C-alpha cells in the first residue's frame, strides 16, 4: 500500500494543532486545549480558538495518520508539548517533521512540560547534549533561540484552571500569537470582558433587590441570595486582582504590588495570599519607591551626611 503525497485538502481548519505525548501529558493537553478555547472568548462565541488535539493514541491505531495529516494541513499553528517522552515519541517526531517540511517554522510554538531546553548561542542551534525535551528532527531548524512557555511547574489539576494566575499568564503568552495580537492587547480584552461580567453580576444583584420589594414573603431567601452573590463577586474580584498583579509583576512593579494588596483587602483568598508571598520573594532587596518626579529622572545621589537622599534635583540632563 503506497502513501500518496501531494496537496492535502483541508476539510476543516484549525487555529492550532497540539502535538504531545499521551503518556505524560494526557491530562495537561486537554486542559490547555480547553484554556485556549476559553481565554479571551467573546461572549457570543462558543470558543475563542479552534484547537485540534487527537484524543486517540496514534501508536494504537496507525491508520489515523491520514486524518492527522489533514488536521496538520488545516492548522495555522503547531503547539509542541515538549518533554523527554515527547522527544522519544515516533509520532510526535512525525508530526513535527511534517510541520517543518510544509508549514512556517515561525508558527511552531513550544510549551515545555518536562526535561530541559538549552540553546547554544555560538553554534546557533540547541545544545543537544543538554536538551532532552525536543525531538532530534528539530536539529538545525532554528536560527535564533525560539521563545517557549514553561509549564514544568504544573502539578495538580488546580494548576491548570484559568483562575490560577500563573497558568493564566502562560495561556496568555501562548494565545497571543494565535490571536495575532500582543499579550497586552489580549489582557486588555480580558479586563473589558471582566467588566462586562461585573456589570451583569450587578444587574443580577439589582434584580434580586427588586425581587425583595416585589415579593415580601420571599425576602429572606432573596436577601440570602444577594449576600451570596456579593460574596461571590468579592472572591472573583480578589482572584482577578491577584491575576492582574501577576501579569504586571515585571512591567509595572509598584502597581503590581498594590494590586496584590488590593486583592487581599477585598477577600483573603488563596490566590491573594500566594500573590503577596510571591511579591515578597521577588522584592527581597527592594527598600522603597520615591515618587514626585513628573518627568524622566537622570541622576541620583545621597547627601554627604546620608540623612536625606533625594534623587538629583534636576530632571533634565
Amino acid at each position, binding site marked *: 500500500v503506497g502513501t500518496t503525497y501531494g496537496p492535502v485538502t483541508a476539510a476543516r481548519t484549525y487555529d492550532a494543532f497540539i502535538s504531545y505525548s499521551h503518556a505524560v501529558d494526557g491530562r495537561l493537553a486537554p486542559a490547555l486545549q480547553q484554556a485556549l478555547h476559553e481565554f479571551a472568548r467573546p461572549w457570543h462565541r462558543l470558543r475563542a480558538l479552534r484547537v485540534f488535539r487527537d484524543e486517540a493514541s496514534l501508536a494504537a491505531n496507525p491508520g489515523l495518520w491520514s486524518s492527522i495529516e489533514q488536521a496538520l494541513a488545516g492548522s495555522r499553528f503547531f503547539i509542541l508539548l515538549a518533554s523527554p517522552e515527547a522527544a522519544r515519541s515516533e509520532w510526535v517526531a512525525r508530526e513535527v517533521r511534517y510541520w517543518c517540511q510544509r508549514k512556517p517554522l515561525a508558527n511552531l510554538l513550544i510549551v515545555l512540560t518536562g526535561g530541559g531546553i538549552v540553546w547554544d548561542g555560538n553554534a546557533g542551534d540547541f545544545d543537544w547534549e543538554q536538551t532532552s525535551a525536543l525531538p532530534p528532527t528539530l536539529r538545525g531548524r532554528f536560527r535564533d533561540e525560539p521563545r517557549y512557555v514553561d509549564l514544568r511547574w504544573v502539578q495538580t489539576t488546580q494548576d491548570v484552571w484559568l483562575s490560577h494566575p500563573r497558568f493564566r499568564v502562560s495561556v496568555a503568552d501562548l494565545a497571543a500569537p494565535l490571536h495575532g495580537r500582543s499579550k497586552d492587547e489580549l489582557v486588555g480584552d480580558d*479586563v473589558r470582558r471582566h*467588566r462586562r461580567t461585573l456589570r451583569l453580576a450587578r444587574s443580577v444583584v439589582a434584580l434580586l433587590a427588586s425581587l425583595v420589594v416585589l415579593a415580601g414573603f420571599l425576602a429572606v431567601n432573596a436577601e440570602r441570595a444577594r449576600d451570596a452573590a456579593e460574596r461571590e463577586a468579592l472572591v472573583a*474580584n480578589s482572584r482577578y486582582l491577584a491575576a492582574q498583579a501577576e501579569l504586571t509583576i515585571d512591567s509595572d512593579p509598584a502597581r503590581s504590588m498594590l494590586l496584590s494588596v488590593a486583592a487581599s483587602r477585598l477577600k483573603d483568598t488563596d490566590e491573594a*495570599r500566594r500573590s503577596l508571598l510571591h*511579591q515578597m*520573594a521577588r522584592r*527581597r532587596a527592594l527598600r522603597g519607591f520615591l515618587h514626585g518626579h513628573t518627568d524622566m529622572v537622570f541622576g541620583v545621589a545621597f547627601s554627604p551626611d546620608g540623612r536625606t537622599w533625594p534623587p538629583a534635583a534636576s530632571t533634565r540632563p
Partner: protein
Amino acid sequence: VILWDLNRRRQRATLTGHTAEVSGVAFSRDGRMLASAGDDNAVILWDVARHRRQADLTGHTGDLADVAFSPDGNTLASASADRSILLWSVNVGALPERLCRIVNRDLTKAEWAYVLEGQSYRTTCG
C-alpha cells in the same frame, strides 16, 4: 515530603514539588504552614491543611541545608551552601502593610478604575 497522621499512624499526604533532595523541613508555630528546603536551591512554603504549595522562595544559589521559623512566626530563615542565610517575611497578615511601605503610595483612582471599573474607589494603603 510526606505528612504523617500520628493518631492513625499512616500517611496523610505527599507533597511533591522539589526537583532534588529535600534537606530540611519546619512547621510554623501555628502549624498552618510548612517550609521545606531542597537541593534545588529553593524553599517551598506549603499550606498544611490543604496540602497545597503556597509559594516558592527562590534566591539562594546553592543547596539548601536547613530552614527555621522565628518564634513569633513572622520570619523564616534558610541556610544554604552558598554561604548565606536569607530571611523571609512569611507573615501573610503583615505583608500588605509592608508592601504599602515599600511602594510608598496608594493605588491611584485611574489605576483602580482601569482594573475595577464601576466599583467605587477604596484606598488600598490608606
